[in-house]
């Protein structure tokens, strides 16, 4: 762990009162999503109230840790636009539509994937990338890989 602390130079998700249930769950290798009690829509990223209808009645739903989805869109960074990513180029950043909750798209990197093979519609599964100090980051990986 100490070694990881020294080598992980990328930004670590900042927990706030509005998002901490999501990141606390990620640290336990689980996905939770915020849901609006009024309009029944899922909200992602989460917030202090529903960004679709404005209702303050929002709650959290556990989705578990077997999460699959398909690539909805992506970009490929060939230059680092933030510090810490210089050794990860080309870097795939993708929006993934969840199989269980298609209205939710989650942005993450697609790891273990040849950047020339990435395409919209490609099936992926969520993996948990451990960061220093017990933190964990949801990431995507091709299902075939």
């Amino acid at each position, binding site marked *: 762990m100490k070694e990881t602390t020294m080598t992980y130079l*990328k*930004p*670590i*998700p*900042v*927990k*706030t009162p509005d*998002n901490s249930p999501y*990141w606390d769950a990620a640290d336990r290798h689980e996905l939770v999503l915020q849901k609006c009690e009024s309009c029944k829509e899922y*909200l*992602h*990223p989460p*917030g202090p109230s529903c*960004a*679709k209808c404005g209702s303050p009645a929002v709650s959290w739903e556990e989705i578990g840790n077997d999460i699959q989805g398909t690539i*909805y*869109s*992506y*970009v*490929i*960074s*060939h*230059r*680092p*636009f*933030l*510090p*810490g*990513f210089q050794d*990860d180029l*080309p*870097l795939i*950043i993708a*929006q993934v539509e969840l199989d269980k909750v298609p209205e*939710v*798209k*989650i*942005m*993450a*990197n697609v790891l273990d994937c040849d950047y020339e093979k990435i395409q*919209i519609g490609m099936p992926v599964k969520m993996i948990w990338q451990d960061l220093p100090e017990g933190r964990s*980051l949801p990431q995507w990986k091709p299902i075939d890989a």
Partner: protein
Amino acid sequence: MGKITDRYAIVGVGESERSKNSGKSPLHMALDAARAALNDAGLQATDIDGFMSYNENDSCTSHQLATYLGVRPKYVKDIMGGGSSTEMLISDAVALIEAGELNSVLIFRSMNGRSGVRMGGGGWDVNMLQTAIDGGSFIIPYGAGGPAQWFGMFATRHMHETGITQEHLGHVCTSFYEHAQRNPKAFFHGKPLTIEEYKATPYLSYPFNKHDFCLESDEANAIIVTSAERAKDCKSRPVYIMGLSSRQCHPHTHYWSDLSQVASDYVAPEVYKSAGVKPEDIQVASIYDCYSWVVLRQLEAFGFAPRGEVGNFVAEGNLRMGGKLPTNTAGGMLSEGYTHGMNNVLEIVRQLRHEYRESDRQVKDCEVGICTGWAGPDIAGAMILRN
């Protein structure tokens, strides 16, 4: 405020020098631009009683500008804002003039966009970014730190859905670079671009290569808005505001959850309704062009080509002089310079005044033009102007 068509006008435009390293403060550049706009209008600084600007913590204040012009104005306003703020501030100016509070308003944007705070990033505190951007902790840890990636995510999906290709992005770039060759003040004057060169350029952030990105520059721009009645006393040829839609948000606050719609889709019907014209009435355009794709998506939103046909529309040369919609005729932010939207406003005003007549820069006999703003997929602005 009711119908404002043709009752207000832009009567002055001006700019500072454009450079990559001004060696001047934003206040100094703003003063240069303001004096140029006043001179253009034939007004004294003391004729202006309202000053407004937008910034990203990278500029001077309206109060400072007024002070060093020797004016004690009635009203100053500075907003945090990006590329659709010009339209919003013009709406504010019109409303305040309509209410009888003000007579004439000077609106400016000044930035050392290359030598100072760069929009393209660099030097940002990543934890600050996570809290400053709505939902930032869901994108920053993944390296999505700038507009190239945020807008690129929309672009890849849109291209997938509509059949727009890399080459279509290139036609936007080559059209605007062609315009820059007629503009001696453009950064890329003397640097034309062929579609073959564009296609051979490596990606910086797929689907974008460096030509798809706007330039960063040090520059200030200013415009002066007043009533049609007062415009008669100005020495410039007034350009009348037919309609405005100042700003309207994408319905999703967290915009990267829904890549299918952008704020321009909502602004477009409002601006046409407000101006009482249709897309086919528009003869010249300034389309916000922080990235090439942003132009394509707005052409679709503003009805210049149906969804799925925007790529062919640009490939056929319609953005060039002599095309159906000569666009960003000074080179745009992709090849002239970047003042967060305002240099494109200056250009459309000059086109509608027929300021370039007798030269190949002039869009012949243009009477009606559109100017659009894009501050992101969630915020947009637009105005329709006539001579």
